[in-house]
């Protein structure tokens, strides 16, 4: 293209433009990454500290933001005790390790990423399903029901598609529940939307006429 005088057919022009545009995109991405790292570090407003497991967590519609946001409420016991910052952090660490070692994400989604063979776990801690499960399992608290289920999911089928036994120990199960409770406190900009809003009506026959 050496003969050509038009800039539009000049390799040099396009090469330089490619370099500039790429450079711009990379720089902007890096700047945004710094800001995001600050906003999502453990213990930030968006990703609360591990001690959030000592609190009641809810997920409520915010008029201002136009979607649901996690609401961190009063203190409540978790597995019958209050966890110190160090204990809570260690528990969460164990929970995250177990989540990876058991490969949860190749059946479930976490924060919406993963596999689509089983329900999303982003707000699993808040799922109304655990009320039924608690009765079925005969557990006193929600956390106890979840821990028992995780250790022996094959014993509590809710559907033809059952979760397999992943040889999760009691300790690991407790840690996993902490991990799930912590995840439910993360500000996900309203995902999932309208969480579990009409399931009970649907199960009652899919009618609202009652």
């Amino acid at each position: 293209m050496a003969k050509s005088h038009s800039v539009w057919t000049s390799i040099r022009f396009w090469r330089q433009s490619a370099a500039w545009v790429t450079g711009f995109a990379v720089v902007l991405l890096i700047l945004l990454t710094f800001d995001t790292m600050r906003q999502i570090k453990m213990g930030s407003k968006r990703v609360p500290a591990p001690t959030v497991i000592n609190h009641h967590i809810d997920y409520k519609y915010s008029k201002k933001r136009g979607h649901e946001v996690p609401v961190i409420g009063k203190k409540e016991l978790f597995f019958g005790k209050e966890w110190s910052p160090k204990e809570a952090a260690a528990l969460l660490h164990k929970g995250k390790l177990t989540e990876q070692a058991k490969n949860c994400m190749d059946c479930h989604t976490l924060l919406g990423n993963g596999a689509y063979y089983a329900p999303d776990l982003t707000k699993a801690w808040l799922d109304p399903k655990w009320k039924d499960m608690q009765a079925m399992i005969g557990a006193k608290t929600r956390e106890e029901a979840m821990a028992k289920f995780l250790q022996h999911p094959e014993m509590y089928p809710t559907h033809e598609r059952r979760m397999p036994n992943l040889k999760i120990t009691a300790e690991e199960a407790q840690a996993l529940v902490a991990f799930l409770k912590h995840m439910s406190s993360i500000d996900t900009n309203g995902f999932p939307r309208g969480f579990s809003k009409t399931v009970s009506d649907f199960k009652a026959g899919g009618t609202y006429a009652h």
Partner: protein
Amino acid sequence: MLTSIKNNHLKYESQKLGMMYFRVAIILFGAQLLMGLIAAIQFMYPAFLYGVFDFSVARMVHINALVVWMLYAMIGSVYLMLPDETGIETVGIGLGKLAFWVLTAAVTVVVLVFIFIQIGPGKESSIWLINEGREYLEAPRWADIGIVVVVLIFYYNVFFTYMKGQRTGIMTVMVANLMALAGLYLAGMFFTDNISMDQYWWWWVIHLWVEATWEVFVGTLAAYALIKIIDAKREIVEMWLWIEVLMLFGSGILGLGHHYFWIGTPEYWWEIGALFSALEPVPLVAMFVHVLYDWGKEQGANGEKPVIKNGPAMAWLVTNAFGNFLGAGIWGFFHTLPQVNIYTHGTQFTAAHGHLAFFGAYATILIGMMYYGIQRAYGIERLKATFKSKMAITLIVFGMLGMTVALTIAGYEQVLVERAELGAGWDAYFVAQALPWMKQAMAWRTVMGVVMVVGFVYLIWDLVTIGPKEAKENNQ
């Protein structure tokens, strides 16, 4: 291709090494399909292999075989084109061969551990030795480190061959892009308790691979292949390549934001992600136009009879141009705006897009490169498609399109019932999964998977036999 190519017409050791990479790649592709079929059957009959070879295991091997076979075929393609572009034998070829065997041994061990050990206790040692549990990057840490070493050797070879030989525009893009591609792998190699942070960096690897560096890689391969197969003019092809780099990186790098809508990251990613990812289809249209334009132009030139030097490779190349646009461009755009994605995020719709995009953008062109390698290995002037080549491409493409349609329908149903109507959650999920529409779609997905497997049998049969057959006919 699988039989040893004894009377090798390949002048360069580098190209022979490339063929070795292709052989492993095609075997892993077969393994991928098999695992996909098992997982698809488990969607229909959950008791199938329950507790023995669970869905998570089949799926893990399915997607890891996918990533690994594609990386193998990519490395193979580079070793194939390197001497052509630089005009010299690849430096450090002995080391390159050693790296090949090391990598292949490591991959074998990882797969065996995935299949037989599957999972570990919730400890650091599991992450290091068994399973990292992060989708696509499940390979344990020891293997990550091994991969980095092998890739460093590969990159050393490419870089110093480039420096020593002739430096074409195509190779300049290749060398720069491979650096970014390899470097990004490091972003997926650390552990954090913070799941938001985890997903933030995980997407650096996944998205910045498939929507930036791998796309540029495909642009580079297509440029090389067009020159080789239809005698496209280098100046035109290289100019297009720079335009493609501009558009792909210009949209794809910040398009990363479309994965940061809901993982705990701030709201500004809505705007950034929506804007830049909405532009991502533009270069894919351009790449499609480029291939068709060059094809038409070279075919019509001087009123000569059209010359396509490699029929099957060209067929896969055109499928690539269209498939990339369709799977990544159209199916990607469908769910890329946050207003849509809040409902489609993590549904069968995602799976529909994931399948068509990986297939259309990558599987196609890499299969094309295998055919091109065979042509060179047997020293065939003009490689014509056989009946088997035609059956292979028809069945595989038809199977993939059918599967995508099934998954898209499943996705619509899931989005509307589970997400919009019932608001996600455990019961919402299973209500939607149990509807007849979902079950039908899952059955069709499996049927289409079988069609693909039949197509794959034709493909491998063709790859093994087309070389000797055409070489014989050419010499008569």
